[in-house]
């Protein structure tokens, strides 16, 4: 009862902060929507409005270069009263989505999967933050709040991913797979989370009579994902009347025709790339992004949840159109591993680099685009620093977890200096 009251207070406070920002500063939502750090060509709220306008006027939004988001968002937002006349409904929708994400995050934290999975129990597992604190860290993270106010559609992906994880730790594999396919349907890249998520489901499923082999289980889940993906896509094709949305949504993520600046590494690279090598490097970048999945899943077989956390961090750096929304998701799930944080070596370096990039990024973008006293290299350099800071953080967390595992084998090595051979 006490916890419920605390939770209600927390959620109420988070909603109140967002409502205050929405209503107290009427110019803020549009200002943040226009920021390249928040809105990317595949998530921007302004582009969603344009797609919605075309959809409502019987022009196919996919026969154009502006709207690259999933078709099912169109009827969803068409049901809501227009955000230009009644913005309150849109605000409430985004606040509710944030609270749902926080709720799923609390369920993950409550399960204790981070500290002790089926195959592995950390010696430090008792040193953890309460689910309340983790949800508060997510809800009051400035990145999360800015994302909510800027209203990109990536919050739906975030919510779907967190629900997929929370259902997986609850052993509810089918629901989890459906949530994953919904996330993949919205923004494609979450499909790479399938291997660790299937293993997580396998580890957490309730023991039944007649032990099912892991291969059969994964195969069954793959079928479930394929089936729900197919039904979502088929529904979309019925809504839009053709399959041309595939090229305009997933094709854009794969081929990167829109080079609007963002916090990632792809845009400037492909602006400056020689035409004859463009397709080759698109392939290299996608292979690089997916190469982490297999290695991490095999090496960290005993902690599939941490594989997901690391992959979310890597996606926030290396996906084609990243935004701070992806970073906020990574920073939301990282505190689940509170117990290994003391083992990290470069926390100060990583956090100060991220802070530095956060503050200088908007300034350099202003210098380039508005003041004209800087050029594109200013913003490009800051995205390099940002990516480097995040990758130091991801790698350091990975180091901490691996060391934690190693100390179970070699308990006498606790606190000693180590090397890798």
């Amino acid at each position, binding site marked *: 009862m006490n916890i419920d009251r605390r939770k209600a207070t927390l959620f109420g406070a988070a909603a109140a902060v967002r409502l205050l920002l929405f209503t107290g500063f009427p110019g803020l939502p549009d200002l943040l929507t*226009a920021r*390249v750090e928040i809105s990317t060509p595949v998530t921007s709220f302004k582009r969603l*409005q*344009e797609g*919605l*306008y*075309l959809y409502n006027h019987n*022009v196919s939004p996919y*026969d*154009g*270069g*502006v709207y690259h988001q999933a078709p099912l968002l169109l009827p969803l937002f068409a049901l809501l009263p227009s955000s230009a006349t009644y913005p309150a409904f849109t605000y409430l929708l985004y606040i509710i989505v944030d609270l749902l994400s926080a709720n799923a995050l609390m369920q993950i934290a409550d399960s204790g999967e981070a500290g002790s999975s089926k195959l592995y129990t950390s010696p430090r597992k008792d040193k953890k933050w309460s689910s309340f604190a983790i949800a508060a860290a997510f809800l009051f993270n400035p990145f999360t709040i800015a994302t909510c106010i800027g209203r990109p559609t990536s919050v739906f992906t975030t919510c779907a991913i967190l629900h997929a994880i929370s259902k997986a730790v609850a052993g509810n594999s089918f629901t989890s797979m459906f949530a994953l396919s919904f996330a993949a349907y919205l923004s494609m890249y979450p499909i790479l989370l399938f291997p660790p998520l299937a293993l997580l489901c396998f580890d957490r499923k309730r023991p039944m009579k007649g032990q099912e082999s892991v291969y059969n289980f994964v195969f069954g889940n793959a079928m479930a994902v394929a089936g729900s993906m197919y039904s979502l896509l088929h529904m979309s094709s019925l809504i839009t009347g053709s399959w041309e949305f595939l090229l305009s949504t997933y094709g854009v993520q794969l081929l990167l025709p*829109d*080079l*609007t*600046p963002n916090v990632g*590494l792809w*845009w*400037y*690279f*492909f*602006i*400056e*790339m*020689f*035409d004859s090598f463009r397709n080759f490097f698109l392939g290299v970048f996608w292979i*690089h992004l997916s*190469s*982490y999945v297999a*290695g*991490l899943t095999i*090496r960290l077989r005993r902690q599939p949840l941490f594989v997901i956390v*690391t992959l979310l961090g*890597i996606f926030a*750096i290396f996906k084609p159109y990243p935004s701070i929304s992806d970073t906020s998701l990574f920073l939301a799930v990282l505190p689940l591993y509170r117990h290994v944080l003391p083992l990290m070596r470069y926390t100060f370096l990583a956090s100060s680099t991220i802070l530095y990039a956060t503050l200088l990024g908007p300034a350099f973008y202003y210098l*380039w*685009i*508005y003041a004209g006293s800087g*050029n*594109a*290299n200013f913003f*490009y350099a800051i995205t*390099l620093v940002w*990516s*480097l800071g995040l*990758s130091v953080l*991801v*790698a350091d967390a*990975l*180091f901490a977890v*691996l*060391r934690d595992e*190693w100390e179970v084998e070699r308990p006498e*090595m606790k606190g*000693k*200096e*180590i*090397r*890798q*051979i």
Partner: protein
Amino acid sequence: MRQLQSLLFILGFFFSGQTTASDYHEQLLLRPLHPSLLLASFNFQSNTTWASFEQQNFRYFPRSLGQILQHANTRELHLRFSLGRWDAESWGARPWGGAREGGTGVELWAWVEAETDEEADGRWLTLTNALSGLFCASLNFIDSTRTTRPVMSFQPSGGHNDSTLENLHLLHGTLPREVVCTENLTPFLKLLPCKGKAGISSLLDGHKLFDASWQSMSIDVRPICAEGETECQLQITQTIDMVLDLQRSKRPRDNPIPRPVANEELKCDTSKPYNSHDTCFPLDTAAQEEGWSLSQIFGHSLKGSCPLATDGADPVCINVPHARHVFTSAGAHEHKDPNGYLRCFELSPDGEFDLTLPDQDITEKAPLEQPLLYAERSFIGYGQESGGVQAILTNPSPTESVDFVYMESLPWFMKLYLHTLKAKINGKDKPVIQEMYYRPALDRKRGTQLEVRILIPANSTVVLTYDFEKAILRYTEYPPDANRGFDIAPAVITIGNVSIRTTSLLLPLPTPDFSMPYNVIILTSTVMALSFGFVFNLLVRRFVAVDEADQWDLRAVRLKIAAAGKRILGRFGSGKGKVENIKKVQ
């Protein structure tokens, strides 16, 4: 309005004369615009029967153009080369009511006969490439991103059979960046029967034409099928309109630098208290008509009439009040239009013709015709990320409302947000948009096409605004002077049969650093390699305590090298032994 009527009367006279035979007509109309400017409109028109066109029997119709039209199955063609801005506020309505006008740069639209859209695209490509060669213009750069298929704007001006009308495809392309210059004038003159050697075309000179404040060259080819007649005609109309600055044109070519007026030639207002030998307030010279002559402003006089123009129309007309003195060289006959401000001159076939208007104090002026619509378009917003376009459309008529189609064809990198399109009438939100056609842009494939039908009531102003986002391009897609910006084609406003243009716009896009390709590839790859290295280094290597690991000091290295060397030597030695063994067995 009255001088337009008289012009129509002349044209009507000419039209009634032609029915069957191929004939040729040319006329120059001079119209002084109020502030010391002169509008010169050259018109050249010839007709040929459809049958002789089909048989390639060209007389006045230019063969080079005719064969291109036949090859590309083009039934109607309109080509425009324009420069400068028509100042409708002080110059009044446009020449020809705007029917012969084009946007800044080059504009081309044509009705192509084809069964399918793909076939029409192919023929359009043939047409643009052939015209590009003929007119020395970059028309071959009109690709799919610069081509639109207008739906509501542009109606065929010629008479087409109903059977061919079904298969006609209208294609429209613009090149707002094209600089129109003498290399376009020379092929233009070559199409004329007198080729600039005689008649009014002998006045055309690149130095004067492209020195004008505003100029437009047009070529229109259209079929004319009279009611009840089976025989159709093909008509080619070439016009050149230019607004010349009299003072600038009168400057001698050997001494073109403007110099201050000498003290004694200044006309000062002596009633001013500060007037003295070194201070002067210039007198208002509006009542003073400036003197000029044809040979002064065109550099030389007219070289007789073109002997092929046999339709009887007077080749030179001037639009001034009858009270204005006009002197001509000997051999020319003056015909005054009794109820207007127009007088025309009949020329002798040989002998030079010059027209002189002396300085004269005269208050009466030929009235300027009011345009149907004032249109202005500009960018709003700042920064290189996004912006907006604002079009101000004013209906000056106190009684009549205007119904027109506003068409924008924008490049794909200007990403239009249609949901932000707003039309305000006299500052109030009222529905004035009656109909809309929108075709969104596809990246690198086609541009945006927006056509809006608007009805403006009498004496009202409509302000049309919309937002757009500026895309950032691949570095190879920028022109060499990337920071100059990109030219955006003028909006076309179609009112009935005439279409007027706004000015073109200059759109600055965000630019990358063009010197950076290698640096970016190297730096980005370094970050990716670092991250890949961080992660996979942790994944594939084992942890050991510091003291358990091999020590990598100098002695350890030396020992390791020695051990490795010994091992290799040992292997080599044993190999040798084996060979010896084999030999022994043999």
